[in-house]
């Protein structure tokens, strides 16, 4: 359900072009967007902040098209995910999407015994999520970190709900296996 304050602020932005109202929207939702992008980028906060900035600029430009069919935060996260995918396409990087189960567990073992011995909370979290392919990681982050339900995750990722369920099942299973191997019980 929309927060009444969000609806009032959106109305002010759309009808009067109020930058102050948009600033309040940004302040209220920046944490969720930046946190989501930080998890997708593997803990690269600077890159996540750049992407988050692009997200809010696009939101400002397209706010008139927001139809309240989904929550405002869901709509923002959808834009954020698209911004992330656009940025990813420009980067030449190895894709984990084709990795199978044994390769993923092997990657997990390598990341455990990496050179960096620092175990800050964020490092733990990002290393754990890094074992998952991008689609599974996205779905797990959206559900477990951002608290989105399956219907909302499907709206954000433009995937069918059954596919989202499948990604969540596989992703959580692999994540749980990884955590147990690394001493979490």
């Amino acid at each position: 359900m929309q927060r009444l304050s969000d609806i009032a602020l959106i109305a002010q932005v759309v009808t009067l072009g109020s930058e102050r109202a948009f600033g309040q929207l940004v302040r209220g939702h920046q944490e969720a967007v930046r946190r989501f992008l930080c998890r997708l980028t593997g803990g690269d906060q600077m890159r996540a902040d750049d992407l988050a900035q692009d997200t809010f600029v696009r939101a400002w430009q397209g706010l008139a098209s927001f139809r309240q069919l989904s929550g405002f935060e869901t709509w923002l996260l959808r834009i954020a995910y698209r911004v992330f995918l656009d940025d990813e396409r420009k980067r030449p990087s190895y894709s984990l999407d084709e990795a199978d189960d044994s390769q993923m567990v092997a990657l997990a073992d390598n990341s455990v015994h990496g050179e960096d011995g620092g175990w800050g909370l964020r490092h733990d979290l990002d290393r754990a999520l890094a074992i998952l392919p991008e689609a599974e990681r996205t779905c797990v982050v959206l559900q477990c970190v951002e608290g989105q339900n399956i219907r909302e995750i499907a709206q954000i990722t433009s995937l069918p709900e059954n596919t989202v369920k499948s990604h969540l099942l596989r992703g959580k299973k692999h994540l749980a296996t990884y955590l147990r191997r690394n001493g979490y019980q």
Partner: protein
Amino acid sequence: MENNILHTHSDEELLQQFFATHSEPVEDDGFTERVMAAVLAEQDEEQVEALRLRRWSCALNLVGVLVGIVLLIVLGFFPRVWSYLLELPVRWVTLVANYDWDNLLVQLLLHLHQLPEQLPSLTQLAGFFMVTVLLSVLTVQQLVRREV
């Protein structure tokens, strides 16, 4: 099968515990200011002018509505309408009770003849009309400037 179900339940608990202990707040640290600076930089002159006219149009509409309401109150429009509405049932009941069906046309004309006494005077109507025209001209001027 039972082992799989138990494992799945404990997987959920494990993940819930893991994510709960690894969640950290993300402080704003000037992020909102940077976003607003980027948003304002994206706006070009045409958009700024369009925003300015949109705000002006909203304000003008609001003023027009308020002026219209004040004029109607000053001209005594609402009390007259209200008293007319209150009298209407009585008038109709009386009309029907005393109605001479043989003289339907005469009765109708008589009622219509009495109607103008309930309406505002021509002077009052003219004043209201002029104010409406003035506000409309101002609005059209602004729209024309925008096109130019």
